[in-house]
């Protein structure tokens, strides 16, 4: 067991950068994950989350910057740094011609002493014990995801790194996976998970880093992000949407007003919307529908992650 300096972050990435040709997949990313955090790495597809996680696991060497796990640098010796770390990047992969249990047995041998004794327990935790002797070739996507978690648990991790753990799962699978992550976090395991789903991160995580185009657009506690999320996107349909757009545009508290697919869309908080609805009626415009298809948090997420695209479009 490694002795680690008190207060040393579990994960400390500093100015981490990875470039592929003209693409800066990860661009000077710095984050700190502290003991006990359930840390969400949030961003749309292509934001650089997976590349970041591959560098964290030592699968990819960064072009510049570094990552420390409990103060131990990942490069040049990932095995030393990854002691006590487990998880998976993208979809967990196993040998399809072997059973789930056989796969875990092989991985336990690569972990060394102790892992093998946890196989049954890990299979129980992810509820795969009854299918453990089946070949992985016959597993559903959700079962492979759960086997990935079981493979991670063999290492009795203090840090669990999960890349889009609910990706591709059905609603029941998503519910179960989130519940499992919460349970593991409740047992004291520090968790770093990536997701492109704002509500998932909101539901599970205590801290978040939002990535866009390889960079960190926001980093901080979830409550701070929620505090900034005061405006939700609204979709408005009236008897005259052109006139409604004119009325909405320029109102204090309204941003991004536009006609989109025949509807008026804009971002605003609840009080502004209440006021606007009264003014629309006063102006003789009947409201057919007024909806908020995304939460305020999701709206903030889209605002943060689509900023560059809007700049490009402009």
């Amino acid at each position: 067991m490694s002795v680690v300096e008190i207060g040393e972050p579990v994960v400390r990435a500093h100015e981490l950068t990875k470039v592929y040709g003209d693409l800066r997949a990860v661009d000077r990313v710095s984050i700190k994950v502290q003991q006990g955090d359930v840390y969400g790495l949030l961003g749309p597809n292509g934001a650089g989350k997976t590349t970041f996680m591959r560098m964290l696991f030592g699968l990819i060497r960064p072009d510049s910057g570094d990552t420390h796990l409990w103060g131990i640098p990942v490069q040049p010796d990932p095995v030393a740094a990854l002691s006590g770390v487990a998880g998976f990047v993208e979809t967990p992969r196993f040998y399809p011609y072997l059973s789930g249990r056989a796969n875990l047995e092989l991985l336990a041998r690569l972990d060394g002493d102790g892992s093998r004794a946890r196989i049954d327990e890990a299979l129980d935790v992810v509820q795969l014990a009854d299918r453990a002797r089946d070949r992985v070739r016959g597993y559903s996507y959700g079962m492979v995801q759960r086997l990935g978690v079981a493979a991670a648990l063999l290492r009795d991790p203090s840090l669990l790194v999960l890349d889009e753990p609910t990706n591709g799962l059905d609603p029941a699978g998503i519910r179960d996976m989130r519940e499992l992550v919460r349970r593991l976090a409740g047992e004291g395991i520090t968790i770093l998970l990536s997701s492109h789903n704002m509500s998932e991160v909101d539901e599970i995580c205590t801290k978040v880093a939002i990535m866009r185009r390889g960079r960190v657009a926001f980093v901080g506690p979830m409550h701070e992000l929620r505090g900034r999320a005061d405006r939700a996107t609204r979709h408005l349909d009236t008897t005259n949407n052109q006139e409604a757009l004119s009325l909405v545009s320029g109102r204090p508290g309204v941003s991004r007003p536009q006609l989109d697919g025949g509807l008026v869309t804009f971002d605003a908080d609840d009080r502004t919307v209440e006021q606007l609805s009264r003014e629309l009626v006063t102006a003789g415009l009947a409201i057919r529908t007024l909806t908020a298809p995304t939460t305020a948090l999701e709206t903030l997420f889209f605002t943060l992650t689509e900023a560059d695209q809007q700049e490009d479009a402009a």
Partner: protein
Amino acid sequence: MSITSTAARTSTARGSATGSRRPGIGAVFGVEARKILSQTKTRAIALVLVVAPWVFILLVLHQDRLPLETLYGRYLKVSGFATPMVVLVAAAQWVLPLLASIISGDIFSAEDTHGTFKTILTRSTSRSAIFWGKTLAAFIATSALVLLLGASSLLAGLTTVGAQSFVDVGSGELTPGHGLWMVVASWLSVLPPVIGFAAIALCVSILTRSSVLGVVIPVVVGLVFQMYTFLNAWDTVRHSLLNTPMNAWRGLFDNPSYSAPFWHGLAVSAVYTALFLALGYFVFRNRNVTEG
């Protein structure tokens, strides 16, 4: 520490699963050996290697003609020791390189195919241990398959024809005991060049990340080498080709015997093996695992 009832972990605690001692080459070898033995492909090849010599000798015994153009072909109905020697002569040029390729040309690229490099490289075993463990497993599995073919050929010959006295390359008579020694030593002598072909396959498998190329390229290389030996070209080049040591045993069992080709072949095989392993190791150690 229990998975389900873990007490809150302190800031000084890290998981204990990985322990203080890293699993090494032996652990990787065990994992690879189990994977190789679990594969249908391996079992099918082993079955073919066991059955083929029996089919061959039974067909020969039921026909009038003998493969006279092949060394020891004329003795197939005379002594059971001729069967493994004919199989060795016939297999040396492309069957043995193919066997080496099938196992070694797949052992790294199969991880790319299944996307499992990221699975094994995030455990507690170093890349170095994974490389050498896989290499050791590939070499031992390849050697085992070659020797399985030899053993099956010997058994087929002795069972169907018998353990009569035999002849060496110079046509000197050998007792059954000496005949057996000649068969065993001859088959053992082809292992170094077979390992050389396995090293080529392994390196190609790492460089191309393709199992198909890992299997095909070493066989093509073997055929090109063989074609060169048909030419009336530089002997220096011919002696440096990896298929030349496949026939080094002939000198050992000539009358009088000479061992220079065997030792030269051993050196050539060692050079091929070292060069291709070094290249494969360098590439594997430094590659970024972006797939899977």
